[in-house]
Every structure is written in C-alpha cells, then in structure tokens.
C-alpha cells in the first residue's frame, strides 16, 4: 500500500522531513495499519524518530485532513500527517 505522510512544526524541523511517499507491504499492513502502527514503523529509523514519534512529545495524527486518534485505520492512498498540539489564534 502507498501513502503520503506530512510532518509539521517541531517534527518537520527535527526530522528534517516535510513530506514523503511511503510504500508498505500489503500483507502486513492492508486493513491493519493504524496511526500507532505507522508511528512504531517510522520510529525504527533512528533514535531521533523514536524520540519524536513515541517519546514525551504529544503527537497528533490526521488522516485525509481529519484529526484522528492512535487507533484510526490508514487505507491505501491516504494522506497522513503528524504534528504537535496546535497553537494558533
């Protein structure tokens, strides 16, 4: 399955990634890929990824522009985003 992932604010700055196209094996992920599972997958890249996605920082996730929680399922072609709690206004 193919998905697009966006990173914002502190995550973008620290991970040095603003967006990427990810291809994940269908067998292990189709129908079972949650936000938390994707975070764990990305966290394997390095200590910095581990700290940013599964550390003390609160990370919010969005799928196709909707805020979701860690258990939300990601489908093929989805646009996923990770970012810290929002601070606008």
């Amino acid at each position: 399955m193919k998905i697009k992932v966006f990173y914002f604010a502190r995550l973008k700055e620290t991970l040095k990634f603003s967006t990427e196209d990810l291809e994940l094996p269908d067998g292990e992920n189709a129908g079972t890929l949650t936000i938390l599972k994707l975070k764990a997958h990305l966290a394997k890249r390095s200590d910095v990824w581990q700290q940013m996605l599964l550390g003390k920082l609160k990370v919010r996730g969005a799928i196709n522009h909707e805020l979701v929680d860690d258990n939300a399922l990601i489908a093929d072609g989805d646009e996923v985003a990770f970012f810290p709690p929002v601070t606008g206004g």
Partner: protein
Amino acid sequence: MTIRVQTQDFDAGLEMSLLRNARKDTGAIVSFIGQVRDINEGDAVSLLTLEHYPGMTEKALEAIAVQAKSRWDIFDALIIHRVGTLKPSDQIVLVAVTGAHRGEAFKACEFIMDYLKTEAPFWKKEVTRSGESTTERWIEAKVTDDEARQRWTKL
C-alpha cells in the same frame, strides 16, 4: 461563511462594514482580534512565525464555523487567520459573527476562538531576545486552552 488563511494583513473595519451591510435584519456583530504580544513567558518577543497545514487548516476552520452556525442562532461567521512571519502588534486572527441579537453572537464568537485554538492546525514559533542574543522556540500548547474548549461540551 467566509474562511481565509493568508500572509497579508486584514482590514477589520472594512470586513465589519461588509458584514454590517450584508443584510438589514442584522442587529449584532461580535468580533475578536488576536494580535502578537511583545512578551511571552517573561521574555521579549521580536518575531512570531505561524505555520499551517494547507488544505486541512481551511477545512478545520470551516468545520468549526459550521458547528457554530448549527449551535447558535447566528447569520454569518467570518474567520481570517494569518500565517508567515509577524512582529509585535501585528494582527493574527479576526473572528466576526453576525446575528439578530448579541447573546447568540457573543457565544458563537467565543466558541469559534476556543475551538480554533485547539483544533485548527496552526503552530507558532517565536524569536525571543535577551541582550545581544536571540533564541527561537516553538510555543507549547496550553492546558487552559483545552479547558476553555472543554466547557462547550458540558453545556
């Protein structure tokens, strides 16, 4: 309803005038303007940069305005939010709500701001100055903003 996310400044007087003249049965316009402060957490702030998530930010603001309109008896809602680099005293956000009477408009305007602060994807980074040195830091989300949002779910 009007939602705008933009780098350029806005003319609150002009926007209010347009809302005022949009329909003759309008009896109340409630507005809020948020602006950049020159101090935060005791440190002098020289610049503030606002980042957003193009596409999602507009949708989130639209959803908040739609919710306000379904909850209170109002005519129209306008949200303008700036992004990019701003300096102290610059305007950040304008929320304006029109209705027949003030009560519903006041509540809807405050609701929109409380939800915007906790649901709309914007992130602030500030440059603080102490003597000769400058420091960049991301602004942390405040618990008081979450509490302000929570009170609308109890009503």
